């Protein structure tokens, strides 16, 4: 399992192999959102561009748009979240994953932050 990459919009991304990645939201993000009650995920096969809204997370507080951290095609969505949206809170980088995507451009992954970079980034926010 490779290390996680992070976007400034608080998504994490794990490179599964040369062409596919898994995407979710970070522990920091789930804490900010509060108890997640509903996750609206994209359609399988949907083509998305980096920074496009691809999902919506509804917490008890409000709805938040989730932006695509990279460009690509949606291969798979986490159907578990439909019945257990709270997995986003309890296991954001594990069972709370959102979707798997086929990468358009592997270089976009390199532009994301690594763990140390993201830790510093959220340190500046708080």
């Amino acid at each position, binding site marked *: 399992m490779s290390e996680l990459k992070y976007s400034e919009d608080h998504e994490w991304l794990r490179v599964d192999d040369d062409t596919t990645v898994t995407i979710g939201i970070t522990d920091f993000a789930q804490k900010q959102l*509060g*108890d997640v*009650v*509903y996750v*609206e995920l994209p359609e399988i096969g949907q083509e998305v561009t980096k920074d496009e809204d691809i999902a*919506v997370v*509804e917490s*008890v*507080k409000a*709805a938040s748009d989730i932006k695509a951290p990279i460009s690509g095609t949606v291969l798979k969505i986490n159907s578990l979240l*439909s019945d257990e*949206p709270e997995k986003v809170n309890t296991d954001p980088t594990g069972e709370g994953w959102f979707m798997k995507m086929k990468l358009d451009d592997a270089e976009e992954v390199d532009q994301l932050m690594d763990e140390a970079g993201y830790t510093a980034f959220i340190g500046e926010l708080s």
Partner: protein
Amino acid sequence: MSISELKRTPLYALHIEQNAQMVPFAGYEMPVQYSMGLKQEHLHTRNHAGLFDISHMGQIKLSGESVAQFLESLVPNRIQDLSHNAQRYTVFTNEQGGIIDDLMVTNAGDHFFIVINAACKENDIKTMQNRLPDNCGLEELTNVALLALQGPEASSVMQRFCPQATELAFMTGGEFTVNGAHCFINRCGYTGEDGFEISIPAEHAENLARNFLDEYEVAFIGLGARDSLRLEAGYCLYGHDIDETTSPIEANLNWVISKSRLNDEPQSYPGIETIRQQSQQGTERLRVGLLSDGKAPIREGESILNEQEENIGTITSGGFSPSVEKPVAMGYINKQYASVGTQVIVKVRDRIQHVKVVALPFVEHRYYKRRT
């Protein structure tokens, strides 16, 4: 409004100590949630006891010879028949029959104790003062806090601090000494649960709050859960579900309207003509409860549609209900769609949600009923 202009309640320091997330609300810096989080705070109140700081609300003492008659001239229910210690929910109306504010009134014997919404305080006081007879006095209680202790275990907690207060019936109140402090306690609340609202001098408030929080049943609860609890209980939130453009009849608050006053009583109140007419002929729209079959929360401001996707109403409050575990909402809907069981549609981000008109409340009220 910048954060420096916001007012603080006597419990501000305690909120900070308890890791509250503070937000601006009605001109005050208020706790929206604590570390437990909204959902757990909500469920804790339904299962045990929650302590709420509601000191931002206005507390008013009205006194004088004709005070009951005076209050009755501003509201659609009767006040003059309110017996000593009895409490009543009512609304201030405007000349169009709209609601200026909703309030709680208790007959405290030598005065009436009323609690009004924080955001409406100034306007309510002006409304009352403009019409106040010479033989009556209005005093805004400013050096007091207001604590709400709510939940099925609220009474057993209160028993340890002020056993006499646990003998109050629902919607009654009186003066009690708690921890050496002179308090006015009503048995009422905004959650649908049994509970108390305690008006306490500011200098004693933090001490009593700490004592409550030391009890194993009690947790501090923020405004976030207060909102989801009141929504499940079917209560209106002023400025959302009711305002100056909604009449008590449209708001389905018929129980605040005295029929005898509409028919033959001599004393009028603002908007009585409109309310009389609406009471006889009905209104175009009504406030209803809405329960979704889907999972996406329905929020304030969304349109309500019929099956032909024509606009038939608006959502005024909505969210995910932690107790029902479904999205619940309230809104105004055209009369022909207002009966319980009617299927309607709300679009959330262009996706159709099938929603049903249901009877309020969403969660059964569990007020204390005194054994006789």
